[in-house]
């Protein structure tokens, strides 16, 4: 498999500006996402994340700048691009009066699926969402976690090459979140490119190869988690060579000699790991009604 740097770009944005009157929601943003990569898009409210995703997914037009998604112009090639992208919205965008299976069949048909292929994709999606045994129930009686999982798989029926996930785990329990993570892992294994926005930094740590932090419509930081950490702690570019098999004591000596401050901490599991260890990872699907 080729290294990430060798892969072609799935998303290329240069000097993107989106203005609403005098206000600029996106202000000269540039970023690139390689195929197969999972990019975490972070930023406070109003940073320009949602506007950027709306432009990339054909729902909004840029004021200026260059945008290319999967080699296509979202403005000119909207229909072709829509066939190749999946968008998981933050809100539960499902018909509550329809069953889980009916929702998936509807969205599948709109994506051009029919017959045996449609039935196969719907069954697979219900399985992915852990809802195979609740397929005939109306979405209105699903729990929040069940609705979130269905909301996610509804965007994946047509097996898109690029998936935008906008805070896909809001308001769900750790079991369902864990299930969503597993779904994202499967997407990555399939080779899909993912742009993942969230306020939960732990999710980015867990899922993303690279992180872009936006503020005031611009990229203020970009890189892998380690790169961002180093940059934040001011140790970027400092290092020391350790021999293979060095003992801890020797290693500490070498690091201190190189002027690197070393602090030893016990690696304790996070609260979510504790919770899942105690309560189990199996889904808890109680009716939402």
């Amino acid at each position: 498999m080729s290294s990430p740097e060798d892969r072609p770009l799935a998303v290329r944005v240069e000097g993107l500006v989106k203005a609403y009157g005098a206000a600029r929601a996106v202000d000269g943003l540039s970023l690139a996402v390689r195929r197969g990569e999972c990019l975490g898009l972070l930023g406070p409210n109003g940073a320009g994340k949602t506007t950027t995703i709306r432009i990339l997914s054909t729902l909004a037009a840029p004021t200026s700048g260059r945008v290319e998604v999967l080699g296509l112009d979202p403005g000119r090639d909207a229909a072709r691009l829509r066939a190749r992208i999946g968008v998981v919205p933050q809100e539960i965008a499902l018909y509550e009066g329809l069953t889980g299976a009916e929702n998936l069949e509807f969205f599948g048909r709109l994506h051009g699926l029919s017959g045996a292929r449609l039935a196969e994709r719907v069954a697979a999606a219900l399985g992915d969402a852990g809802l195979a045994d609740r397929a005939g129930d109306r979405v209105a009686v699903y729990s929040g976690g069940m609705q979130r999982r269905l909301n996610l798989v509804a965007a994946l029926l047509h097996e898109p090459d690029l998936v935008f996930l906008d805070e896909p785990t809001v308001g769900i329990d750790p079991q369902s979140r864990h299930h969503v993570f597993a779904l994202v892992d499967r997407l990555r294994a399939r080779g899909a490119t993912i742009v993942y926005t969230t306020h939960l930094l732990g999710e980015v740590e867990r899922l993303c190869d690279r992180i872009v932090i936006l503020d005031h419509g611009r990229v203020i930081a970009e890189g892998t988690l380690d790169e961002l950490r180093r940059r934040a702690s001011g140790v970027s570019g400092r290092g020391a060579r350790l021999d293979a098999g060095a003992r801890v004591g020797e290693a500490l000596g070498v690091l201190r000699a190189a002027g690197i401050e070393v602090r030893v901490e016990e690696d304790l599991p996070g609260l979510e790991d504790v919770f899942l260890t105690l309560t189990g990872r199996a889904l808890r699907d109680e009716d939402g009604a």
Partner: protein
Amino acid sequence: MIRLALVVTAKDLRLFLRDRAALGMSFALPLVLATIFGAALSSMAGGGRAQRVEVAFEDLDGSAESQALQADLARSAALTLQVRTEVRARVQRGAEPAAILVPAGFGEDVRAGRKPRIVLYRDPAKEIELQILTGSLVPVLMRSAGPGVAKELMRRGMEAMGFPAGMRAAAESMFDGSKQPADGGGETSNPFDFSKDGASALGLHVEDVAGGVNAGRKAAAGAHAIAGIAVMMLLFGLTACGGTILEEAQSGTLQRVQLTPHAGASILLGKALFTMSVGLAQLVVLFAYGGLVFDVPVLRAPGALLVHSGATAAAAAGFGLLLAVSCRTRKQLEGLSTLLILTMSALGGSWFPLAVVPAWFRTIGHFTLNAWAMDGYQGVLWYGKDLGGIALEVAVLLSIAAVTGGVAWHRWRHRFERIR
């Protein structure tokens, strides 16, 4: 406790004053409806300028007596006499609410002191006009038929109302010297009913000619009520269907649909088809009910009824979709649609027949789709008109559908499809 209650009241008042839909429903709608009903009822009650009823008149006798009758009728303040031919057919197809036919021999009967024969053709659907007509017709006929007929009419009335024999004799003595009618008229134990006894005594032969096999007040009232309710509820129902656009926009499902490759035009077209289907189903159920329960003659011209219902559903669907894409929220849509639909229903004849209101009211009413829909339904159900007979109504409704649908489409594209 009172202080807290006042705090709650102040909060609710603030919310209420900021809710334009609630304000409209509470103040604007009652004022609009009161104005419409006030205008209609004051005209019907004769306030200011009394409502005149058009009556067709055909004279097959051509005698001095029949011409005197015509002149006498023409002087009536409540009637507008239209001299026509084939008056029975005119009433049958709804051209006038009633017609008077003076057969040959009328003048001779009057001169011979016999009870003269006059034919009154009626449209039972026009009950209010018929009451006005009857009130104006009686004195004219009594004058033209001579004192013998008047005496007989009074005798029957007093007898039916239980006046003692002495009083009846005293009253009859007022007609001393008058000739008795030729056939006299027998004793009756039935209560006095002018439409039967009075008309008969005056030599008036009454024939209800509109409404097909189910002619009668029940069927007439049923036809109007069912059509009126059907059109009004169709507007409410289809506006609610159009409102699903706003629901979907709010829930995010509309955006999800828009993110599919070829959704575009299909979304609004799908909504329009859905809305029209619901509308047609609603009409079928209501008219089937009307046929079963009120004897509304729904099978007189089934093809025309179906086409007219399709045109009505299309116009209502266009109206509903236009309202939906013009409102920001479902709540706003509910407030505005209630205000508009109730006003249109009152103006357009869904609640009371436009035939009973003045001409200016009818003109305003015909700026609503309700009036055209009601005219078409009355034409098909009551007068048995075929498709050609309601072509104008169908054409107007389809035009309304095209215009409202076109504007809705334009607004839809601007608001939901344009990538901005």
